């Protein structure tokens, strides 16, 4: 079996032997990713209403269910309505700091079991317990790091207080975000991801970034579209007109 050095040396030799291909360059990356990301958010501070309209259109095209809440205080009501419609009994949510609001009091007093994870919650015991909670929950509630209008996609970065499974294991996923998360294009997402990875120790505590575009789907049996094969069968987006109190500000 080859060592890394041998393996790479062989490839280097082959690269050297190759006739020069056509002049080709990779995509131009932002020179100062943090500043480029700020520029994207500044643009969007003006353009978010169009982006929101496009997001809703595209999100509904991929079978997402779009909701609008006037204020942060209205969000639990929207989630409760979804829970009632689904006859849901249990909810698992990102920690209040990651979500930008604390759902536990209002959902709890409405009779739902609410399980949540705070940034300090780590370790095997918590992991096992939380896996059970997430696997049996009817609804998972998360925030959104980037809401991409052109494709109706919600991008979620995993990390402390923001488990990967919340948007995956329960049959219904509800994601809450405000105007400061909206961007228009994949190109802008590229800039934001470059910035996120420029200094990941500071900007990312987790290992996974998920682009979620509608519910889990398959067409593997006679090309018949079926939803919820592994991930959620339903995905809801709750847009809050008022800013959520999020970690990291902005």
């Amino acid at each position: 079996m080859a060592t890394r050095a041998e393996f790479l040396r062989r490839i280097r030799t082959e690269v050297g032997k190759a006739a020069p291909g056509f002049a080709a360059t990779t995509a131009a990356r932002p020179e100062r990713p943090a500043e480029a990301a700020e520029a994207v958010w500044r643009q969007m501070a003006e353009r978010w209403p169009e982006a929101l309209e496009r997001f809703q259109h595209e999100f509904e095209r991929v079978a997402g269910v779009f909701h609008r809440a006037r204020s942060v205080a209205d969000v639990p009501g929207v989630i409760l309505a979804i829970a009632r419609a689904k006859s849901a009994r249990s909810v698992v949510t990102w920690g209040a700091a990651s979500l930008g609001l604390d759902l536990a009091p209002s959902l709890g007093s409405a009779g739902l079991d609410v399980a949540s994870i705070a940034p300090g919650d780590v370790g095997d015991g918590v992991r096992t317990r939380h896996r059970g909670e997430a696997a049996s929950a009817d609804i998972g509630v998360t925030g959104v790091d980037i809401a991409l209008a052109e494709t109706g996609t919600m991008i979620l970065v995993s990390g402390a207080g923001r488990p990967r499974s919340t948007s995956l294991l329960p049959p219904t996923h509800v994601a809450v975000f405000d105007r400061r998360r909206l961007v228009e294009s994949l190109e802008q997402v590229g800039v934001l991801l470059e910035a996120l990875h420029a200094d990941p120790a500071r900007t990312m505590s987790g290992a996974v970034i998920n682009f979620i575009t509608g519910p889990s789907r398959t067409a593997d049996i006679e090309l018949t579209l079926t939803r919820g094969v592994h991930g959620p069968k339903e995905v809801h987006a709750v847009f809050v007109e008022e800013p959520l109190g999020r970690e990291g500000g902005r």
Partner: protein
Amino acid sequence: MSEPGLATPFPDRASAALRDRFLQEALGIATTKFIGLRREAFGEFPAGDALRDQARAIKEATLQHLDVHLDRLADNVERLGGRVHWADTAEDAREIVLRLCRDKGVRMAVKSKSMATEEIDLNEALEAAGVTPVETDLGEYIIQLAHERPSHIIAPAIHKTKGQVAELISAAAARPLAADPEVLTAAARVLLREKFLQADMGITGANFAVAETGTVVLVTNEGNGRMVTTLPRIHVAVMGIEKVIPSMTDLMVFLAILARSATGQKLSSYTTLVRGPRQPGELEGPDEFHLVLIDSGRSKQIAGPLREALYCLRCGACLNVCPVYRQIGGHAYGYTYPGPIGILLTAMLKGDHAVKDLAHASSLCGACKDVCPVRIDIPKMLVELREHVDRARIAPASERHVFRLFRRLLQSPAAFALAARAGRIAQRPFVRNGRLRRLPLLFGRWTATRDLPPIAARTFRERWKDLA
């Protein structure tokens, strides 16, 4: 349909597929649907053409420094706490995964769809070593239950009826299930959810790997790629070396065209970016992350005739439009990768001998090149491959003799005219309904599965003489 193995020659495998009524219908419906979805997706996406050019350029630029990008990828994966393994051959790759299973006491591995692991026959190796591999993509799960191989890169079970699927999943669930995709999918969800929660290892492929960030990118619609990278304690990603791309900015270019080419979606339901194992502060995710990089004939093509095939994104678009694939389906090709690109990849991975017949399983119509998201010139490489196979005297002797004769005729106008006149007389007993069929002797093999227009009563050259 039973799957003809490699012991059966390609013409017989193809004939068996052509006689399979259900396969014919299923292939027609599926490929036509995918073609329409793709066309619609690019129709409403004016930026698509420029992005395809850019994606092609990124693949080429990456190949020009492939060693540097792989080195950087490995550095970043290791910096994040992952381990990188270097597999020269398919056997090496299998051995790496098996050793991990042995060392870590793995008894069950859940897999998300991966052509790379199909390519190295990983499931058979795991089973032989006492590890249970569970395919979790619904299509792959179905064909695993049926003990078959995928017949399409992105729709592995298109050759199965819902009745057949119902039998398979009913047996797995130990209760009778209706032949209804909704019911069967729900049953598979329950069966596989249990496996996700029990498995020790999650095995994935990689659609891309981003060198600058050490990120493996998985594109799925079902969410099984997320399951296998979230729940088991070990994640192993297996990928060919050509899957590396430099940066996140490059990734966005590919994401914009990949799903549109494959299924006509703007993006697949889930695009999952994974860097390393669970990070400090994070509650969930595997303890260990392993990346297995496979060469297996790829590096030889960096300076070889199949270089462009290393651009391939495995979207399956060229299968859907190929008049040969549309008739015979994936199994008849006999190897992991079917369709026009599959012939080239098979030559890359298994050598020219493996494609002595397959090299001709193309009409060279160019539809594959037209739809390829990175504009791989598949027909050109297929022609070169045919020449190569001929030079290496791999093709059947009778075929080589006929072509040598044909070449002589084409080189001499006098001989050509003479042959046309002689042929016109000789062909008479073999013309049926205006077509030449079932020629004798040397030509027999050729016309057993093909018909030809007969030589005209007056050839073009004869008529031209009158006109001039």
